[in-house]
């Protein structure tokens, strides 16, 4: 007798929980609330990507055209795909010392998997991700970028 009651109880509870689930989905069906779909090409002007979105690796420069990259080459070593190539040069500082500095920070977007290892391991926080995602170009060579802007210099106080 007890097992029969247990059996019927199971059925009723089961149906009840299924109906609960269907109530949730049908509520969404009739009043979806906030639609999450982005109508992309139309809303291109107003589209704001999430801050955490990894579009491409960039090197932020301040208004005096200074960046924080010391040319240490750690990002090049850490990149799993060989995306980054550091070409450094030797400069003479004001007090007459020789010092290594970045000449070209070459970033090949076509080979990047956006793993963020370079951004995370850079000791002077010189790299960041931009939210740009429209990367299509007609020539593959255009995907090879030099991240430090021409004529840029190391920011004061960054070693």
């Amino acid at each position, binding site marked *: 007798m007890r097992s029969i009651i247990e059996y019927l109880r199971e059925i009723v509870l089961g149906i009840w929980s*299924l109906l609960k*689930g*269907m109530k949730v*989905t049908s509520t*969404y*069906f009739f009043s979806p609330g906030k639609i999450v779909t982005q109508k992309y090409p139309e809303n291109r002007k107003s589209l704001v990507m999430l801050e955490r979105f990894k579009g491409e690796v960039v090197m932020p420069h301040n208004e005096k055209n200074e960046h924080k990259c010391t040319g240490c080459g750690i990002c090049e070593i850490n990149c799993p795909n060989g995306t980054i190539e550091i070409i450094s040069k030797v400069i003479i500082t004001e007090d007459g010392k020789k010092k290594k500095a970045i000449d070209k920070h070459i970033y090949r977007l076509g080979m990047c998997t956006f793993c963020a290892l370079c951004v995370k391991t850079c000791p002077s926080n010189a790299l960041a991700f931009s939210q740009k995602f429209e990367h299509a170009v007609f020539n593959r060579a255009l995907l090879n970028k030099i991240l430090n802007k021409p004529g840029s210099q190391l920011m004061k106080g960054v070693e």
Partner: protein
Amino acid sequence: MLPEIVAQNTSASQSVPWWKFFYDFSLLTQPVDVWLKGSVSPFWSTVIEMAIVGVLFLLFYAVVGLFLVYAERKVCAFIQNRLGPNRIGPFGIFQTVADLIKLLFKELIPIKNADSFLFNLAPFIVIIVNFMVLAAIPFSKGLHAIDFNIGIFYVIAVSSMSVVGVLLAGWSSNSKYSLIGAMRSGAQIVSYELSIGLAIITIVILAGSMQLSEIIEAQRTGWFIFKGHIPALIAFVIYIISSTAETNRGPFDMAEAESELTAGYHTEYSGIRFAFFYLAEYINMFIVASIAATLFLGGWMPFHVGSWDGFNRIMDFIPPFIWYIGKTFFIIWIIMLFKWTFPRLRIDQLLTLEWKYLLPINLLNVLIMAFIVLMGWHF
């Protein structure tokens, strides 16, 4: 036995106003039939009528199949707070047409070591079975290709043949995924056929007939789901559950469980053969939904309440075809809701549900229904 033939061309007799056709299609089909019989020999008139019906069914098949694929994607999207297809045509309504055109142009990849004859045959078996079932479905008053006196029996018997196509597809494609998918589908259909059959028997007991037109006629004073109250309601629920399982749809879609078996029995199919399977799945859903609508919700019969003549008269103003489509799509909506609400069952859970729950309840339900009919306790 000549099939009662349906045609939708406009060359109808002038005496009847055109809107009457929506209430009784035989007004349209009878003159065509008479005219054909008068102008050609009986043999050729039968051939021509069959050809017309065949073409109409082909059109119907394509339109309904494509629309259901679209509807499924929209329903799924709304449930998940998305928009769904919205690019091709207004509200993306031509999306599935575009998909079909794409599939038509795709290469039919030959499979190494596959049994090519059976491999090519399998999609056609599934489609042919679909057509055979569609022939027996009453779409509206007078819009009914064949009215067998064992209509509903024919429908269950023929529709269970589609598993042959699925099994052949799985066996002949020489792939583990396909074979496992097909075997699961076999186990599933064999068990759930039983539930469908018993749920239908419950209604056949109440109706006292297996002829679909008579079953509908018997619901003139109220749909069976109201007339047969508790046992009919239980049978309805069981029918919906087991027909979802029989059409291999989620949450019972283990035959093609995409997370475990890539695509189950149609993994190896490409191009238009894949489209056949895909469309057949949706037409199957349409078929089970329209059978449910016919048996429990009165098919094309408008909503009537016993002897409220005024109310019944008002309801009669809505054409039967609208009633039929409305009910069928309501049930299709429920089945779609199932798919997008519930997680997929494991094979053992699936068989437990059938053999430990649905079957005993169903057997008891048939008994209760027989008793109620015997005592005259229904409405």
